[in-house]
């Protein structure tokens, strides 16, 4: 395991010793008096100089969070204070949420980072107070008079360090906003806080490097066009080996009906590639007229974790490419934050997409009227519609070797509201599906602990702590129903949950939903299937043969 994470036994002891969620003794202390410390495993490496320069972002330099002096630029207080004032004018969310919290505490025990660290500053209410305390001091006159009374404080370098620490221990998952009686969304505050930090060069390489890559090559991983094609073609070869079916994806082809965009993690990362194989099999099965772009080769958008401008800039490629290729509409793969952007921001930022048509499934004729403006359909909506109209030949027995549970990804759950489609698909492609406890799924789902650009190796301790509530719920179904497969529809989940499972629940593997679809599809002209896409034996089929004998 990583050197950035304590041994499981040590962490477990930490949870066991004092079975209370809040760790530490805070008698007669205020939250702003509680110390924090950067150490191995709780901070992400800052963006490299060339990355910052490539993006034209301020203050490129070599530094570390453990440094005493962060080499903030001249006049940084004014940059932050002006930046905050500007954003308060542009975002009602920020202004209203800084103004109206009553500190009722409903959110306090809802954050996965708080549940995993016991650190009081990870309570969503305090996370917002980190900036609210400065806002009060700077802005509201009447409260300024009653300074100590309202818990306000000056903007110091120490406060910036604290912001960096705790706005990078928030994955913008919005679980707190579900419980808040005023709907206060800490994600809004975190997003804008990170935007402010970027103005003075307080940044995270795991976010900014993918942003720079995506801008240059079209995808986070920095894959150039020829390599991108090669990789998908090699997946097609694997598919042929397993199934005897030759799938023929096309690239940058003009006049295709549908442009398919998925996170680049599905093209390059394990286990995302198996999900990609599932998509390719599905499209072949139904004879979809689609193309994949090497230019808009990223579904995800780390701009969302950087700044509004950057999110818009990276997202613009989708419509730009759809227009150039003259497709009718766009189909999007499984991803969490990608869908937050597509669903809640894309049309507003880069629309209207008048050059596209209302999405209609060419197979079933279903009009996706819920996407009539954005003209982009989620693959789970698309596939659920296919299954409902019985257009897919599926044999769920082919997934009998898996006992599954489903992890709702935060953004798709709380930033889109898609709960039923993936479950419908899952029930149709496998026979064993068990839900995790009800307070840990659907709109109350727990984050993987690594979302919003925190999936860095050096951040492992916080990731394992933040993922603890999710892992603990998986453990429950693992013990009760022998669940061994965690199914998800998010690329960051597919990248981060395997590490979380290895740490907390060894023996549980992570799957994309369409990987299971790919396993279950009975393809026309296929060779005899005995193994799934990962080359694991399909035991369900063996049982069937025995029955026939």
């Amino acid at each position, binding site marked *: 395991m990583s050197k950035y994470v304590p041994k499981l036994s040590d962490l477990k002891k930490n949870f066991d010793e004092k079975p209370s969620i809040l760790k530490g003794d805070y008698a007669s*202390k205020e939250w702003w008096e509680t110390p924090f410390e950067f150490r191995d495993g709780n901070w992400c490496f800052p963006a490299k100089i060339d990355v910052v320069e490539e993006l034209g972002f301020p203050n490129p330099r070599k530094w570390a969070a453990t440094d005493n002096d962060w080499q903030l630029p001249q006049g940084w207080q004014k940059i932050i204070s002006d930046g905050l004032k500007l954003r308060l004018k542009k975002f009602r969310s920020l202004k209203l949420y800084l103004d109206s919290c009553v500190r009722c505490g409903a959110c306090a025990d809802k954050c996965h980072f708080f549940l995993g660290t016991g650190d009081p500053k990870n309570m969503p209410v305090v996370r917002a107070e980190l900036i609210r305390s400065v806002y009060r001091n700077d802005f509201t006159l009447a409260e300024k008079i009653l300074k100590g009374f309202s*818990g306000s404080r000056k903007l110091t370098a120490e406060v910036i360090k604290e912001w960096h620490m705790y706005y990078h221990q928030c994955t913008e998952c919005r679980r707190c906003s579900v419980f808040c009686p005023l709907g206060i969304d800490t994600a809004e505050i975190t997003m804008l806080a990170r935007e402010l930090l970027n103005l003075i060069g307080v940044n995270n390489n795991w976010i900014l490097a993918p942003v720079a890559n995506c801008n240059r090559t079209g995808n986070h991983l920095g894959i150039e066009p*020829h390599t991108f094609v090669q990789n998908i073609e090699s997946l097609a070869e694997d598919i042929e080996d397993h199934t005897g079916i030759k799938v023929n994806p096309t690239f940058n082809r003009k006049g295709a009906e549908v442009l398919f965009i998925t996170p680049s993690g599905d093209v390059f990362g394990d286990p995302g590639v198996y999900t990609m194989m599932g998509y390719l099999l599905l499209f072949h099965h139904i004879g979809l007229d689609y193309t994949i772009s090497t230019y808009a080769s990223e579904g995800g958008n780390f701009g969302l974790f950087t700044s509004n401008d950057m999110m818009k800039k990276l997202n613009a490629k989708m419509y730009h490419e759809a227009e150039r290729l003259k497709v009718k509409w766009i189909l999007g793969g499984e991803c969490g934050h990608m869908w937050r952007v597509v669903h809640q921001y894309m049309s507003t930022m880069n629309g209207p997409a008048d050059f596209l048509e209302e999405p209609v499934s060419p197979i079933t004729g279903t009009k996706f009227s819920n996407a009539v403006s954005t003209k982009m359909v989620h693959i789970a909506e698309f596939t659920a519609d296919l299954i409902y109209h019985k257009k897919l030949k599926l044999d769920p027995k082919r997934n009998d070797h898996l006992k599954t549970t489903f992890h709702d990804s935060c953004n798709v759950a709380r*930033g889109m509201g898609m709960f039923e489609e993936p479950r419908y698909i899952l029930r149709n492609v496998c026979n064993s599906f068990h839900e995790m406890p009800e307070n840990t799924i659907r709109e109350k789902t727990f984050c993987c602990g690594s979302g919003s650009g925190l999936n860095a190796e050096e951040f492992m301790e916080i990731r394992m702590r933040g993922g603890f509530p999710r892992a603990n719920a998986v453990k429950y179904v693992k013990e009760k129903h022998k669940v061994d497969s965690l199914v998800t529809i998010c690329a960051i989940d597919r990248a981060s949950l395997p590490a979380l499972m290895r740490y907390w629940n060894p023996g549980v593997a992570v799957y994309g939903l369409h990987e299971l679809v790919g396993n279950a599809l009975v393809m026309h002209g296929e060779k005899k299937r005995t193994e799934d896409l990962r080359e694991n034996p399909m035991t369900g089929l063996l049982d069937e043969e025995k029955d026939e004998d």
Partner: protein
Amino acid sequence: MSFFIVAFLTLLPLIGVKYAGLNYLFGVIIPYFAFSVFIAGFAYRIFDWLKTPLPFRITTTCGQEKSLDWIKQDRLDSPSRFWHVVLRVLAEVFFFRSLFLNTRTELREGGNLVYGSSKWLWIGGLVFHWSLLLIGLHHIRFFFVMVPGFIDALNIADHFLDLTLPSFYITDALVLSALTFLFVRRVYDAKMRLISLPTDYFPLVLIVAIVIAGVFMRYVTKVDVMAIKDQMLRLVNFSFDAPGEIGVLFYVHLFLVCVLAIYFPFSKLMHMGAIFLSPTRILCNNSREKRHVNPWNTPTKFRTYAEYEDDYREKMKKANLPVEKQ
């Protein structure tokens, strides 16, 4: 600290009226001033929020979105039409629905997290706010020559048993119990104590003091109710005539209400208005169906396909990818 501030504030009219004879100040000038500050401040804050744009439709979705015809949409938690949103907000305003659905998380031995329903904050909050509203409505009788009919109905409904004279209002007992609970939970729970600021205790203590002064006037010291009504009617009619002879407790009650009114627009009490304006709750989850317009949508320069092809043309050609320019 909140106790001292409120105690000090209580002493002001006590001394002012009883010993310094400042009846006019406390009975006329301060109420007018407080009322003006409240109205102007409240309106300003609401206006200030309203004029701040809603750049994106960032609905927090707590239920199934509207998608395929055969999938049931959760209209309350994933609203797609205006009236869905109205219901969502009203359910919050009248029933505190989010707090009703609140959970409590505990770490059990063996390192397992367990979740249970948690209704205490919901009950405490709901009882407090509703009682306060009803008590406020009872006060309407002081501001009208003819008491509106529904106030009489409320008066009868609020009676517990006619054991006391005047008969005891249930809401008086409820509001004091709820306030005590809301105060105690902030002190008792380590998490709550840590997140609570003096600005959280102060309004609680202030309202307790207002209620106690009111209860004393009604049941114990008995002030001249008709004199109060006369004075209140004068105030509503914007008259600057001096008040008649009223017990000092009334001035304490009135002064503390004035303090609350002045404090209100500058404080977290503005959540009363904010709940109707919260972007995650008042917006439809239909941003893919109907384009939401951002008033300041900043133009951004992005890397175009042409620039991309210029950089990778040879590599693309080698990989048999179609190119725009040879």
